[in-house]
């Protein structure tokens, strides 16, 4: 019986037949989960989430705390059961399968290493449980430790390792059993910044090398942008938007994504069907239904030099500037739009605080969102 036979016809969207032939590493269909709160109410953690990995992708679940991303991860690993919906791994429904029988492994937030076992026994745990012979386990443990750069540390106890090394052991342990999917629950949050950036690159390289799907949970947007093939932005138990990092950053579909990923200036506009008009009368071409919308201006789109092609310009008084090395972060106080934040390359001289400055935005840097900012 295939997992699809358990459902009445018409439940799944079109293209279902293809899935049987080319199973996706992970597919979540209409996942719902509510928790009882101590006060007696209910809290909806997952409000109808569907997600499909096209291939062995690196997908990040990004969102603020309480958005449901950890719950979603735990329904994949099997530590939470869904109220409704299905989880399929490699085309097989695992919705009712207990955690220990699912072909996925997890790197836990605080590593959850076995303190009473050596590094080698930690890494070889999945194989030991599977009843593999000792020689095979020893070889695989050696390979895994080499993979994460801990060669020769088999005999160490967990307490003798630094935080970064423990992280690597947790990674090696989760990969040793050759999972079909690796789940990572904010694994880098306990590391300091330099180590975190190094691990981000290593994880991405590792995912490419192993060719298995990675589901990475984080609340750190920078981390998500750096590592992911695709990012799913979660809020209030729903996927707000899913797409490639550049797509989400440059052309967010809604205000939440625009605001959560990076810095943003959000300006209200009025649409008349062929053009958009800002509050100060400036306009630009926009073929969209008439009504109200929001213009997204990323700080780095703005520049102090006038572009060759016409765009928008904003004049105001410089309130604050921060020097970051490569850029100046500028807060420009405009009358009509309030404070506009801009990121200007440091090549050009910048007028001091209090002086008047005009910033230009080229037409191709403008993105409209069909929502009205509060």
């Amino acid at each position: 019986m295939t997992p699809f036979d358990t459902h009445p016809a018409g439940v799944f969207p079109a293209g279902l037949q293809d899935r049987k032939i080319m199973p996706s590493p992970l597919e979540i269909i209409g996942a719902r989960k509510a928790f009882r709160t101590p006060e007696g109410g209910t809290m909806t953690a997952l409000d109808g989430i569907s997600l499909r990995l096209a291939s062995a992708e690196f997908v990040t679940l990004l969102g603020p705390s309480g958005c449901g991303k950890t719950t979603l991860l735990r329904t994949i690993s099997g530590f939470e059961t869904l109220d409704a919906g299905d989880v399929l791994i490699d085309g097989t429904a695992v919705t009712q399968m207990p955690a220990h029988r699912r072909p996925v492994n997890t790197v836990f937030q605080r590593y959850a290493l076995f303190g009473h076992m050596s590094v080698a026994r930690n890494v070889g745990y999945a194989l030991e449980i599977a009843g593999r012979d000792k020689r095979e386990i020893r070889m695989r443990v050696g390979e895994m430790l080499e993979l994460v750069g801990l060669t020769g540390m088999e005999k160490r106890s967990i307490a003798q390792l630094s935080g970064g090394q423990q992280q690597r052991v947790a990674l090696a342990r989760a990969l040793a059993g050759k999972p079909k999917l690796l789940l990572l629950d904010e694994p880098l949050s306990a590391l300091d910044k330099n180590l975190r950036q190094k691990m981000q690159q290593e994880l991405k390289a590792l995912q490419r090398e192993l060719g298995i799907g990675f589901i990475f949970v984080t609340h750190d947007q920078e981390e998500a942008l750096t590592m992911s093939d695709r990012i799913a932005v979660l809020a209030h138990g729903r996927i707000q938007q899913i797409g490639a990092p550049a797509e989400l950053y440059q052309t967010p579909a809604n205000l939440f994504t625009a605001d959560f990923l990076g810095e943003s200036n959000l300006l209200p506009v009025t649409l008349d069907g062929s053009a958009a008009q800002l509050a100060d009368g400036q306009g630009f071409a926009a073929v969209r239904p008439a009504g109200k919308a929001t213009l997204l201006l990323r700080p780095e789109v703005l520049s102090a030099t006038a572009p060759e092609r016409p765009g928008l310009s904003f004049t105001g008084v410089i309130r604050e500037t921060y020097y970051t090395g490569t850029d100046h972060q500028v807060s420009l106080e405009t009358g009509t739009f309030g404070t506009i934040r801009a990121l200007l390359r440091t090549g050009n001289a910048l007028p001091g605080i209090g002086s008047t400055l005009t910033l230009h935005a080229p037409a191709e840097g403008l993105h409209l969102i069909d929502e009205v900012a509060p």
Partner: protein
Amino acid sequence: MILRRLLSLYGLLFFVFVYAPILLVVIYSFNANTLNMMIWDGFTLDWYRQIFGLETSLAESATYVDSTDQLWGAVRTSLIVALSTSVFSTVFGTALALAVARYRFRLARFYRTLMMLPMIMPDIVLGIALLIFFITIGMNLSMLTIIVGQSTFLISYVFVTVSARLAEFDTSVEEASADLGATPAQTFRKVTLPGIAPGILGGWLLAFIISMDDLVITYFIAGTGNTTLPIHIWGLLRRGIKPEINAIATLMLLFTLLIAAIGLYFRSRRQK
């Protein structure tokens, strides 16, 4: 400055007060004076020789006559009781602690309080209650009633010790184990049990020592044929205090310290 000195003095006096009587028992157990143990009359091992049934130069009036066989019979009973009771209460106390810690169910807090209760219950009350219970259900007083009776309150001690360990046990390692393919039984054996082992061992040793030492409750439910060591000593004392008792007390003290030392050794080994 004066206050600090007074405090040091107080501290010193405190320890003298607590430990001097115990130290005296040990010293008296080597005193050759057969009439007045408070007057030092030279070193002797006769009291120990008497306990072990060896030849001594002691006059018959100075000792508890023909007590040796009864004494060792009592030691044997005590050891059997303590071993059975401690194993029994460790298994059940641990199971209870796990259940209360892991499962969310109504009245969980009530059960927790209920488990603490036997520890503060007056021994006399517990002893009478157990006696009446055994008589009511028609059980003859025997070694079995001692084991069952002692277990009723020793489970509480194990429960508390193991619960304390469970409270600081990070359950995410159990999830990690399940995540890596271990069945609940494998997880329990390979991860949970080693994690709470110091608590279980501590609870077991505690139950063992308390069982060896219990007089009041055991006195009620022992019946005639089954004399434990504390009951036997109590019987001897009713025939007057003779120096021999010091040697018995010293050996009991030594035995208890040995068990405590074993417990501490395993605890420190685990924490390394």
